[in-house]
């Protein structure tokens, strides 16, 4: 059976809506909106769907959770804690876990979804970074993304403090220790946040309203803006056959992409349900109620806070006293500097790159990471920086698992945090150049066909054939990285704006950033070191193929 006319109920509703808000024009434009097909474009959707699941499961949890630090005596189903004094928040979290059917499941799904939300944002962001998809006109969406990530960290922090168990209390205590270390305002901020001295009786209810209202509200608004901008500006696409800067190639939103998206949402939810069922997370009943007098060894925050924890552990004991005031650098630097470097660096990168390259064009075709080696190396360097801090956030686990002395892990980390990113930069850069050379070779010499041929004089060769059309199109998608015009004119005078120190720095950066484009050309002509008659085989089809001299 197939439809010849729009079914009555749908036609009626849509006519009603169209008469009032003119939805037809919007639908006409957007039902067949084109969505490029590439697996990496689905990473952001994981974060989006996790957010939806967080809203759903979080709402469920609020029906029972009591954000109060008032003291109660536990009388619930969890035997070992019966009769113990605890906060109402912790008691209600236990109630959700043991006395509400499905409560434990939803709590665990909520926690797993929070981890997946942040993880999804991170990998999505890395995709956008390494492919250069943040370039004009998408800088605003990139900044919204950086804001989203920052807010998500804050949302996570306020969220896992809520159950008021011993572990979450340790996190809260560290938060307080960091807040109070701020120069000038630290004590005031702390007293206003906690309603007086730590821990006070207000922080849980305050974190609660931040966690369930303020931050999710902002997240929702920013996510909507993120989606709208993405929709208006259309997707980027990987270079390939038929793909240009002025078109977008892919599958239609309705019906294919719609169904696939629905399936993808269900997959995300299903996997989270599996994790919530089989992978225990944050078993608060084992930790006991919070008291500032106790802590358990091996206290770890959620993974996305690990880099801050690592930074705190790595820092040497620097503290400055002057004129009766104290500057606790051993807290301030690790709490502010890595986060500052990463978030500010991310937010400014599109603008810095535009300044360096002088590239003011719109970009809709993404770069393959190898084709912009400096950007890729900077990204890898950043990942290494983050990764070392993150690993060091678990140095006690590393120490006990691998039987390395605890202090050694810290001391190695103190060196690695500077050396690691530099090595990573170099290695990533060489790998990019190497991959580009391989691309070049693919274009110039073709790909191995697996066919061995014996020549009349007895030599064996493998026949090389031209790469498949789509592969060739992908490889040839490499574009030269633009550079600003900085060379002196005929009379040796550099262009205006390039004469001051800042201009000279810019010219130097621009030259370096775009340098490799000169070295490797992928337009099918021979680049450096490939003179004619060089002895290398050319590309041919079938019998015309010449030998690769081995």
């Amino acid at each position, binding site marked *: 059976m197939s*439809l*010849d006319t729009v079914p009555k109920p749908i*036609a*009626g509703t849509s006519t009603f809506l*169209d008469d009032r808000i003119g939805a037809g024009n919007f639908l*006409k434009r957007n039902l*067949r909106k084109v969505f490029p097909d590439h697996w990496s474009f689905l990473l952001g959707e994981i974060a989006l769907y996790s957010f939806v699941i967080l809203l759903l499961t979080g709402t469920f949890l609020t029906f029972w959770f009591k954000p109060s630090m008032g003291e109660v005596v536990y009388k619930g*189903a969890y035997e070992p804690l019966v009769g113990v004094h605890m906060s109402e928040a912790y008691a209600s979290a236990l109630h959700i876990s*043991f*006395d509400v059917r499905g409560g*434990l*499941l939803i709590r*665990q799904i909520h926690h797993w979804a929070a981890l997946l939300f942040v993880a999804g944002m991170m990998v999505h962001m890395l995709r956008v970074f390494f492919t250069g998809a943040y370039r004009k006109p998408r800088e605003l969406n990139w900044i919204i993304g950086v804001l989203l990530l920052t807010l998500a960290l804050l949302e996570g922090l306020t969220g896992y403090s809520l159950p008021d168990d011993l572990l979450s209390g*340790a996190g809260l*205590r*560290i938060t*307080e220790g960091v807040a*109070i*270390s*701020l120069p000038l305002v630290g004590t*005031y901020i702390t*007293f*206003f946040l906690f309603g*007086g*001295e*730590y821990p006070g009786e207000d922080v849980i209810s305050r974190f609660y309203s931040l966690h369930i209202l303020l931050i999710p509200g902002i997240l929702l608004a920013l996510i909507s803006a993120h989606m709208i901008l993405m929709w208006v500006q*259309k997707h980027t696409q990987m270079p390939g056959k*038929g793909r240009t800067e*002025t078109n977008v*190639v892919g599958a*239609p939103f309705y*019906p294919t992409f719609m169904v*696939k998206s629905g*399936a993808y*949402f*269900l*997959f995300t939810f*299903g*996997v989270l*349900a599996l994790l919530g*069922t089989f992978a225990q997370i944050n078993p608060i009943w084992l930790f006991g109620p919070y008291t*500032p*007098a*106790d*802590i358990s*060894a091996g*206290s770890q925050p959620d993974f996305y806070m690990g880099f801050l924890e690592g930074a*705190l552990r*790595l*820092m040497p*004991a620097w*503290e400055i*006293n002057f004129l009766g*005031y104290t*500057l*606790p650098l*051993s807290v301030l630097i690790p709490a502010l500097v890595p986060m500052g470097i990463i978030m500010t660096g991310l937010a400014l990168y599109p603008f810095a790159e535009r300044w360096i390259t002088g590239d003011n064009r*719109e970009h809709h075709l993404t770069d393959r990471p190898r084709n912009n080696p400096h950007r890729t190396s900077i990204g890898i360097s950043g990942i290494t920086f983050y990764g070392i801090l993150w690993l060091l956030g678990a140095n*006690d686990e590393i120490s006990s698992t691998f039987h390395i002395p605890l202090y050694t892990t*810290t001391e190695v980390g103190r060196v690695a945090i500077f050396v690691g990113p530099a090595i990573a930069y170099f290695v990533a850069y060489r790998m990019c150049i190497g991959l580009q050379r391989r691309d070049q070779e693919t274009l110039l010499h073709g790909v191995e066909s697996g066919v061995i041929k014996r020549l009349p004089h007895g030599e064996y060769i493998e026949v090389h054939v031209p790469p498949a059309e789509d592969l060739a199109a992908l490889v040839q998608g490499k574009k030269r990285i633009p550079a600003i015009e900085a060379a002196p004119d005929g009379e040796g005078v550099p262009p205006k704006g390039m004469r001051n120190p800042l201009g000279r720095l810019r010219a130097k950066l621009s030259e370096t950033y775009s340098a490799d484009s000169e070295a490797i050309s992928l337009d099918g002509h021979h680049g450096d070191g490939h003179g004619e008659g060089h002895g290398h085989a050319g590309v041919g089809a079938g019998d015309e193929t010449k030998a690769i001299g081995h």
Partner: protein
Amino acid sequence: MTDNPNEINPGEIEPGESPRVPRRVIGTPPPRGGDSLLGPDAGARPRGDGNGAAAAHDAHPADEPVAVGEIKYPDPQSARKGERRASLLFLVTFLAGIGFVASYVIFQVGSVERTATSNLALGGSLAVALLSMAAGMVVWARQIMPKYTLVQQRHPMASSPEVREDVAKTFIEGANESGFLRHKMLRRTLLLASAPLGLLPLVLLKDLGPLPGTSLRHTVWKKGLRLMVEGTRQPIRAADFNSPGGILSVVPEGHEDDLNALAKATLILIKFRPEDLKPGVNLNWTHDSIVAYSKICTHVGCPAALYEQTTHHILCPCHQSTFDAADGAKVIFGPAARPLPQLPIGVDNEGYLIAQSDFNVPVGPSFWERGDAEAEARGQA
């Protein structure tokens, strides 16, 4: 959207209408009429281009997505196979959904074991239901829907210069109409009036908490207050705490449940051999080689709870600041910058350990107003 069938099912192709119309590849199965949004008969029919009225209304006819290349319809047999597969998966979802409701009714909670069973049943059925439906939808999209590639044109994001000019003109006109620039007094008083309004929210937040004052410099410890064992709430008789290497977590008498007090006043109490004590320890503040230190780490305030008997090291599990308990808890490793403050202790006439006074320096993490309290304390002594 209207119920005009042409909106969804554009009419017949008019010959020579669009050069972009790709032809259906010979040998591929014909599309079933009306099944596709692309048109009733031409598999490769670009939507919208066929609809003369729609195209005429459209400022950018090139905006319409155009199908390029081959449109692959699944052959009826594999489509039927796909349908069977998807339906099977949807049936699994249906059963798992029923199973979820059944689990909710059957498996009650109320103990650890019963909660575990309920969690397994509910979570398992939910996961199966969701994953199976997801899989069914993928089968539907991949094995029943036609595959083709659409191309849509982009336009620069920027508006045309005429539009920009027009907007700029309107803005200037409006600004002049408003008289905001001409009427200086209006403008200045308005800005003046806004300033306090902007401050109001900040003022309102003042009652979030009291001002710090000197509260961070004191704890509840005072002369005569007994040291109580954390947890058991028993006072400690000095004569009973006599095995060297022993350690106790200690809270102030009468404040055992006061978290605010505990956050600053919790102690670790360590019994040493007299010969182990080094000069860093203030011997006047010890009793019979029992030393009391603040348990609150001077880094960010975690309880420095781990003690290694042989080396006399106190280790904070949060960031691994390590203090030498035998030498005034001075820092040996880690990010903490100051030793754990020592509390002067003695015994009352019943032989129970008591505080001699409060700490002479602020305990816990450093803060701006703290200053070098240790130097000040030394100066006073």
